[in-house]
């Protein structure tokens, strides 16, 4: 238990100490909010879909949670590089505890990041349909963060260098974001795209956030929660298996 706590605390300490990184990681979601939210807004409205800012804000929040949590998992690569990983690997504690602590830490950081973006969205003009559901939205941020921090850990456990990192970024993280329905509605899609969006884990995360924040979800919140919980279990199991097999 203490091991989980100290690994969690470590992730938080690292986060609060890299202020430049906090600011930098807010930049990208802000750009999306600005360029898409306001830039595409008029067209979206003409198409009779209402406010695009209202639509895209949950997607942008999900995006920042996704990026932060996946990167925290892949941070394993940096630990490997700077050697700290070895310290955790030879310690007489079950590796699964190390892994869980790290995942929870990364997820917590991602939720903080998501909340920061949410606050910015409110300032930019996001209108929440039911304030009582905000705590639920935070829970979903946590769930999304946990799913992708575990996925990141799983990937970080098998990657050995930075080249692999580029691959993951371009062929996994970006597609997960762009094909999740964060930027476009899930209705009237071509069949292939519809299929892809349904297997994209983030689809359910974005949808849950949309459901809780603006009340415009595609699936039911319960269904989203169910799928996310299953994914969390699968990724955590895979992640801890791969993590337990790391050699240094």
């Amino acid at each position, binding site marked *: 238990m*203490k*091991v989980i706590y*100290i690994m969690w605390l*470590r992730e938080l*300490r*690292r986060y609060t*100490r*890299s202020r430049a990184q906090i600011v930098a990681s807010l930049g990208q979601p802000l750009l999306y909010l600005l360029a898409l939210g306001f830039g595409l807004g008029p067209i979206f409205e003409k198409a009779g879909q209402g406010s695009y800012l209202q639509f895209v804000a949950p997607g942008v929040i999900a995006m920042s949670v996704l990026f932060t949590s996946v990167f925290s998992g892949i941070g394993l*690569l940096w*630990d*490997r*590089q*700077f*050697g*700290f*990983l*070895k*310290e*955790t*690997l*030879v*310690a*007489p*504690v*079950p590796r699964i505890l190390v892994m869980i602590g790290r995942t929870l830490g990364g997820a917590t950081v991602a939720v903080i990041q998501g909340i920061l973006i949410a606050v910015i969205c409110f300032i930019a003009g996001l209108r929440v349909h039911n304030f009582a559901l905000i705590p639920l939205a935070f829970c979903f941020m946590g769930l999304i963060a946990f799913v992708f921090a575990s996925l990141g850990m799983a990937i970080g456990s098998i990657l*050995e*260098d*930075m080249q692999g990192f580029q691959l993951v970024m371009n062929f996994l993280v970006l597609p997960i974001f762009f094909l999740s329905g964060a930027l476009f509605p899930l209705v009237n899609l071509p069949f292939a795209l519809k299929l892809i969006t349904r297997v994209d884990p983030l689809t359910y995360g974005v949808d849950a956030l949309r459901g809780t924040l603006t009340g415009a979800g595609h699936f039911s919140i319960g269904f989203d929660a169910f799928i996310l919980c299953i994914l969390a279990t699968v990724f955590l199991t895979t992640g801890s298996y791969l993590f337990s097999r790391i*050699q*240094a």
Partner: protein
Amino acid sequence: MIKVQNLVKKFGDFTAVDSVSFEVKEGEIFAFLGPNGAGKTTTIKMLTTLLRPTGGSLEVDGIDPLLQKNEARKRFGVVFQDPSLDGDLTAYENMELHGIFYHVPYKVRVDRTQMLLQQFELWDRRNDRVKTFSGGMKRRLEIARGLLHTPKIIFLDEPTLGLDPQTRNQLWTHVKHLNETERTTVFLTTHYMDEAERVAHRIAIIDHGHIIALGTPQELKQQTSTDSLESAFLALTGSTIRDEAAGSADQLRQMAKMWSKR
């Protein structure tokens, strides 16, 4: 305490450790010497559960580290050859983390942390982030951390690399003291022959993955009819210089140097 039989480790076609066998008794200080790339670190990594051997058997305090990893890990402490600190944490936090990982009770942890950080002259800098430390300070912290818990066996992989004579002296005094008072078994590698001669009870010389000599410093000198361990070492291993292939970690480290100013 440590029993190694016909240990083999292959990386692809390259055999890093080739059927190595030796035994280390309880309370013994055992030095593993060899030129670069001889297989010293690979052997330590297998003994400390970081690498799976290709063949052979291992025993650490009666436990097979391949089957009961955690039980084995409870029995040893390691000081690695390359850095293993978290640069974003402070010196004190690195010690704290280590203490928790090794189940050191709170009171003992706090006392020993202060004692060790003072001994290795890091106490004044305990609340500074490790990445602001010089190479020597990091090394000292690494050693202090390795001594925080009191394991039955301690592995020291070139612990004195890049240290000044004062700190080296501190380290070996501490290690000898541990060995004498708590009967800690010590398994060390070093390139400084004088250190090995000074502290080690027995020495194994490994080259190209084979153990080519094993005995007390006295025996090794007699065997080669030389008057110092250094000459004995050179007589046994020859004087050609070895290259070590850069591992992926080293390559990564170079990449990082390109991208960050730290």
